[in-house]
């Protein structure tokens, strides 16, 4: 006969209560004994490798490592590093056409007179020489790519490596007050981000209520390949302007409440104020003929230089007899006119003490930014702001996932998770003109991810 551990019962038994209370008293007594080593893990190592694959577009591999170390009873030090390698194709922003289209971008600057030996650039583009200005000491090589007729224009030269790191410190100032702070840094071949945060949390009601508040300051620098384009100017192979910066201040206020022995709820509000360069320097928007719908010009996009974002997030975790269910809702609004809702549900089937299965469903729906246009019409006046980036369009998305986890010690666990992401927008707006009525202006985005996680506590 095989003996199985008794499942967690519905009501707390006297034995469990006494055991928990006794453990707490013993732990307190133990903490007072300075000469004995602690019997709980002091170091947590959390690792993960994410593989992300979009249909016909980007794919990414991201290994991550986070380490936290309990320096003493009141202090926790943590750090982490991450690396992303991205390859594939990303939408240019231009509309498809019933005719082949040609797109040009700056590729490299070389001293004037240098023999040019390259003929192709990444993504299969053809390299051409831009005639230098009179008296110039350098010349620009441009990469020209051709998109076949009736094909959604993608930039196939997309490749990137991102390295990121963060470091933090958490300090208990009293038995109910905690201070935490940290810094983060990330670097790509055309982008750099630096940030610092400071937060405070305070427990009330015998640790049943926690209020927290935090601020984060982020400073980013964009230095795109080919320079920063002047907004709403024609796409060209010329080398563009100087680097551009962006600054963001975030504030988060939250309350976490123990509702009962089995129910934990969190409500938080976050605000972000963004100022500076918000454009995607590689994104363009087509100007089309008002009758035929054929693109006549491609312009670099332009977004407002400020953005104010508000989010409200509600999370509930409920411990059932053995399983745990987590339900969260988020509402988002910004002054670009975007509103969104996100709903997530995770259900953790605790099959046995040492393994569980967790299905996951997420629904997301957003409205379009005020300045989103699939394209601009040639006969109409140019708007102040315009972007054809479909991430600013109206769409909805679903995520379906399944996680298999194997906890094997206190704080240690191996897990594997697969997810499928499906994004749908309106590819045939009713106002489309000419040939655009036959085109799909918002192809669905489908992506699959696999995440391997391993955490170890010692």
């Amino acid at each position, binding site marked *: 006969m095989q003996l199985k551990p008794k499942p967690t019962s519905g009501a707390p038994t006297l034995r469990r209560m006494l055991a928990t209370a006794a453990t707490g008293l013993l732990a307190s007594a133990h903490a007072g004994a300075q000469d004995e080593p602690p019997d709980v893990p002091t170091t947590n190592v959390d690792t993960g490798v994410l593989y992300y694959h979009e249909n016909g577009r980007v794919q990414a591999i991201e290994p991550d490592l986070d380490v936290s170390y309990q320096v003493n009873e009141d202090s926790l030090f943590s750090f982490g590093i991450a690396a992303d390698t991205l390859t594939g194709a990303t939408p240019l922003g231009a509309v498809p056409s019933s005719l082949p289209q040609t797109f040009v971008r700056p590729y490299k600057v070389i001293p004037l007179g240098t023999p040019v030996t390259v003929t192709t650039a990444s993504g299969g583009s053809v390299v051409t020489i831009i005639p230098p200005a009179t008296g110039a000491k350098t010349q620009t090589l441009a990469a020209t790519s051709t998109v076949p007729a009736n094909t959604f224009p993608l930039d196939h030269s997309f490749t990137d490596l991102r390295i990121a790191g963060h470091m933090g410190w958490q300090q208990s100032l009293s038995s109910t007050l905690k201070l935490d702070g940290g810094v983060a840094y990330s670097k790509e071949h055309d982008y750099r981000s630096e940030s610092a945060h400071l937060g405070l949390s305070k427990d009330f009601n015998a640790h049943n209520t926690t209020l927290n508040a935090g601020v984060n300051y982020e400073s980013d620098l964009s230095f795109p390949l080919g320079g920063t384009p002047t907004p709403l100017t024609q796409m060209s192979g010329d080398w563009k302007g100087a680097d551009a910066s962006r600054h963001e201040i975030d504030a988060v206020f939250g309350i976490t409440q123990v509702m009962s022995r089995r129910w934990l709820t969190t409500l938080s509000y*976050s605000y972000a104020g963004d100022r500076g360069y918000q454009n995607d320097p590689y994104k363009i928007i087509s100007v089309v003929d008002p009758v035929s719908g054929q693109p006549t010009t491609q312009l670099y996009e332009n977004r407002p230089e400020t953005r104010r974002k508000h989010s409200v997030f509600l999370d509930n975790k409920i411990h059932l007899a053995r399983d745990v269910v987590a339900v969260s809702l*988020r509402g988002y609004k910004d002054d670009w006119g975007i509103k969104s809702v996100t709903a997530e549900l995770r259900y953790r089937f605790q099959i046995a003490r040492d393994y569980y299965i967790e299905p996951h469903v997420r629904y997301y729906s957003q409205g379009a930014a005020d300045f989103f246009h699939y394209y601009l019409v040639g006969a109409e006046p140019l708007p102040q702001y315009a972007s054809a980036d479909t991430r600013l369009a109206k769409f909805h998305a679903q995520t379906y996932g399944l996680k298999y986890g194997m906890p094997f010690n206190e704080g240690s666990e191996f897990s594997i998770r697969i997810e499928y992401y499906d994004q749908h927008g309106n590819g045939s707006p009713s106002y489309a003109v000419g040939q655009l009525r036959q085109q799909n202006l918002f192809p669905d985005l489908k992506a699959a991810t696999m995440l391997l996680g391993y955490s170890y506590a010692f």
Partner: protein
Amino acid sequence: MRSICRAWSANRRSELILLLCGAAAACLGGCASVGAKPWEHDLLAERAMRVDSYPLQSAMDDHIYFSKEASTGGRSYAGGGCGCN
């Protein structure tokens, strides 16, 4: 007419603020009766019941959604720390 509207809107705003303050006070008052006794925190101590049980995996998810959708923030700070395309 505009000044009447403005006064009405200011009154409505102060009523709304009072209502929200009342609701918050009621919630906080109610919070005193909810919760768990110290010896009932056994289930809440489990990893699955933490506010963010798997922060590394949450950060990876946020990074993906940040690069594909326009919304950020909620659980944590809104900044993405990348020029994701």
